């Protein structure tokens, strides 16, 4: 059956490049209308939406941070009242974790992984589109609730009983819990796509030991998502059930337990940090070699360290609960395991330093951010070692010391590499370079502003200032440092402002970038910038870890894929030997409708348990529409 079809179908074998580009473009490009945009499934389009949306949430979250800094600049300020402040810090945390950090890292994966492994689209592109719409709905839900003064006010950790049925009146905690469901649903969907893309869609010859380090980090991140996110989804659902239908999970009087919440939350919450951090170190391991023009030192140890981090991530959740009165044995175990995570982190840092030492650094903006990352992340890592000690933590837990620590880890350790990554891949995504001058400005402003803002918080914490307080009394000796921090925050914000101005300007007026402006080694630089909808004219064949640094001017490729349907190559898991030609789904509006149906069901279920029953019907209908074969070329086999 397939033999006749194949002979009649159009393949790329005897076409010249221009004709091939034309035919591929016709097959892969999306429609330009409004509904065409809604129906898009191109991983680059989706990822760009994800990134832009996540950065919008970053700006909004940053505004909240600024508002909190204004409030805290002086004792007993009345700029924001207690109720609003509690909403704001909850929003800031939830927004930054669930609507910015995780989505933006996954979005970078969605953009880069298919390009780096040499395929034409991510696995399950419609699921990808669905995940974006669901994520957007979750974000809008949270921010509308904030506008309506019904935003969650229980902290991004939402400890029961404060968030539980008795003390969390109204729907505020439910909004938080359901926002979690939205974002985790999208995160899980993306994780599935990344795993399958990395395992099955690599270019021929890209065996496991030739995968770019960014892809390795994204693969480990995806597995951490898969293992960790079910915990928080289970938890947010049980919270809503406790609040809506009266289950007793967190009611000590009926056999429940409030600490169950904390165990479940941190079983997810600690890996969450690595979900954000692993992609960031992957970016560092990718950017650094380019700017020293030398392959990374110690590829294998770095991969091992990534995997070890992913595994260890699940063994140290209890260090967030060191003051709940645990048995000593458990405390000692979790101290040791929390300390142990420093070893894989150390391995990576030493490998980066060795790479820097052995190469010749080119001080462009991305490298500056990477160096800033190393400086600040080492501080964050060392303070992490400090809080891993139970007795040390007894004094600094839930103080500004911890606030300083995790901002060093999350901003220094993840946002710096992310900005480095934006500077680095912006030319690929838009075809235009960002400004080097503004880049340097933004680096120095962000770096200096960041350290001036967050370093003094360590001292405040040791001086006894607890977290999550909307104000403090004039007799406390915290006023001066708080004012200093608030003023420094302005420097930090101006740095981000310069960055965003640079992005906006460069997007429309930047210098054209060309294929490989940085002379980098990975596959995403082998095509035009921005990449065409089909990514690769012909799928590359890989025979080295750094395919573009082989000294040859020619890229070995595979030919024989069809051009009349969306087709890509499936390869084996370990050796990446070609196994099959697989079709990739066409654009479809069904994921959008499915996301709408899912959103309706999820939001409705805050108010009535019957939403699960009746709301599932539209979801089932949209899913059937999504998967029902349309008798098109992609359906052939």
């Amino acid at each position: 059956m397939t033999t006749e079809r194949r002979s009649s179908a159009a393949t790329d074998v005897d076409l010249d490049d221009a004709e091939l580009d034309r035919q591929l473009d016709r097959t892969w490009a999306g429609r330009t209308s409004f509904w065409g945009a809604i129906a898009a499934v191109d991983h680059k389009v989706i990822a760009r939406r994800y990134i832009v949306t996540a950065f919008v949430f970053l700006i909004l979250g940053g505004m909240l941070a600024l508002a909190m800094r204004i409030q805290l600049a002086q004792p007993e300020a009345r700029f924001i009242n207690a109720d609003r402040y509690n909403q704001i810090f909850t929003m800031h945390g939830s927004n930054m974790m669930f609507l910015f950090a995780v989505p933006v890292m996954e979005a970078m994966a969605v953009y880069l992984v298919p390009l780096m492994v040499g395929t034409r689209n991510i696995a399950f592109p419609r699921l990808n589109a669905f995940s974006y719409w669901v994520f957007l709905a979750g974000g809008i839900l949270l921010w509308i609730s904030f506008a309506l003064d019904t935003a969650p006010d229980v902290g991004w950790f939402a400890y029961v009983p404060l968030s539980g049925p008795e003390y969390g009146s109204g729907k505020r905690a439910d909004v938080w819990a359901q926002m979690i469901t939205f974002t985790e649903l999208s995160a899980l969907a993306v994780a599935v796509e990344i795993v399958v893309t990395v395992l099955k869609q690599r270019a021929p010859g890209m065996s496991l030991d030739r995968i770019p380090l960014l892809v390795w980090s994204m693969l480990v991140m995806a597995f951490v998502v898969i293992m960790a996110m079910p915990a928080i989804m289970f938890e947010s659902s049980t919270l809503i059930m406790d609040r809506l239908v009266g289950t007793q999970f967190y009611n000590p009087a009926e056999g429940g337990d409030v600490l169950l919440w904390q165990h479940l939350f941190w079983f997810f919450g600690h890996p969450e940090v690595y979900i954000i951090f692993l992609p960031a170190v992957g970016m560092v391991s990718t950017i650094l070699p380019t700017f020293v023009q030398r392959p990374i030192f110690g590829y294998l140890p770095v991969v091992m360290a990534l995997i070890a981090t992913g595994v260890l991530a699940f063994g140290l959740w209890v260090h967030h609960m060191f003051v709940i009165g645990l048995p000593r044995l458990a405390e000692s175990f979790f101290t040791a395991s929390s300390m142990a995570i420093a070893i894989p982190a150390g391995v990576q840092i030493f490998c980066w330093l060795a790479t820097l030492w052995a190469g010749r650094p080119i001080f462009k903006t991305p490298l500056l951010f990477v160096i800033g990352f190393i400086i600040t992340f080492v501080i964050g890592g060392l303070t992490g070692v400090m809080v891993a000690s139970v007795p040390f933590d007894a004094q600094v837990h839930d103080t500004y010391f911890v606030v300083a620590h995790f901002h060093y880890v999350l901003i220094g350790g993840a946002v710096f590499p992310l900005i480095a990554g934006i500077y680095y891949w912006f030319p690929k995504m838009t075809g235009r370079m960002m400004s080097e001058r503004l880049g340097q400005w933004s680096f120095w402003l962000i770096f200096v502003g960041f350290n001036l803002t967050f370093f003094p918080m360590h001292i405040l914490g040791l001086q006894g200032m607890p977290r999550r307080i909307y104000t403090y009394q004039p007799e406390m000796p915290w006023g001066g440092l708080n004012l200093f921090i608030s003023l420094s925050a302005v420097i930090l914000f101006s740095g981000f402002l310069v960055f965003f101005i640079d992005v906006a300007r460069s997007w429309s007026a930047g210098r054209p970038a060309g294929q490989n402006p940085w002379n980098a080694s990975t596959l995403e630089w082998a095509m035009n910038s921005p990449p065409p909808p089909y990514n690769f004219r012909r799928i590359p064949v890989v025979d080295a870890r750094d395919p573009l640094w082989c000294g040859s001017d020619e890229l070995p490729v595979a030919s024989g894929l069809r051009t009349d349907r969306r087709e890509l190559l499936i390869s084996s898991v370990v050796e990446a030997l070609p196994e099959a030609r697989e079709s990739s789904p066409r654009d479809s509006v069904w994921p959008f409708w499915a996301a709408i149906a899912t959103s309706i069901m999820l939001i409705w279920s805050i108010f009535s348990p019957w939403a699960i029953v009746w709301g599932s019907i539209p979801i089932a209908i949209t899913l059937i529409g999504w998967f029902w074969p349309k008798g098109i070329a992609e359906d052939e086999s």
Partner: protein
Amino acid sequence: MKTAAISLPLLLLLSGCGGVQSALDAHGQTAILLKSLIIFVVATCFVVWIIVMLVLIWSLMRRRDGQAADDRSLHRRITIAVSGAVAATALIISGLTIASFYTTRGLDPARDPDMTIRVRAQQWWWQFIYEDADPAQSFHTANEIHIPVGKAVRVRLESSDVIHSFWVPSLAGKQDLIPGRENVLTLRAERPGVYRGQCAEFCGLQHSHMALFVIAEDEESYRQWASAQRKEGLQPREPEIVAGKALFMARQCAACHTIRGTEASGTTGPDLTHIGSRHTIAAGLLENTRGSLAAWIADPQTLKPGNNMPIVPLSADELRQISAYMDSLK
């Protein structure tokens, strides 16, 4: 700039200066132990950071003349350096773990404490119950405790609503108060003084205004204070105060507050039997003066929005009388 930013906390650490509520201003047995651990760990980490930064600067700035001599031997040398660094990391980490472990061992709650205080944390104040084998000798107070210097005081921690955390940094590390569970903490003040503490686990709207004071004093003063606290509320003689007492009983106040020796026996709010003897009111919000008492009674919802004390409509005279009565309850 970096060095300045780094050396600043070190200076602070070394000078040991802290403030009214600081982990570095240690006066309790536990806190002193923790402070030495903190200094040890921070100093170690500081040295590590400096070394890493020196290597970073060297890697970035070193002169690179021509081609690397022998790539193979270079690679071997780097491998040795990196392995050595990883091994050093492992060693330091183990050292810190062991230090942490031994500090933890020194922190175990005292087996036979000299006295026991039960804490019931509520949104947003602290109820303290001084327990005694003789129930008649036990008494309640709020937001302020006195302890004798040099005695091991067991604090039994309970919560009556959400999770709170008991933290008096100058005396000991923090410990959570969890509904449905009981935790224990031992306080042992080595020097007399007034130590401020604060709730350290987010507990809702007025989490920021949930402070407590521990007053450590010599045995004799403590005994005097305790016997004064066991007494019933003073019977007023001055007409203004008598009127204040009558008002207190007639109006909404008595439904939520207890004043032992009167018919006021509400339990929703703090025990006011000896309110006049406390240093602050409203969980550390205001210094305890007649003026601040009057301001608090007149409009608690402006001073601490969302707390559980309603605005009781009172005329100016009534306010003066009630605050005089409160002030008289030494």
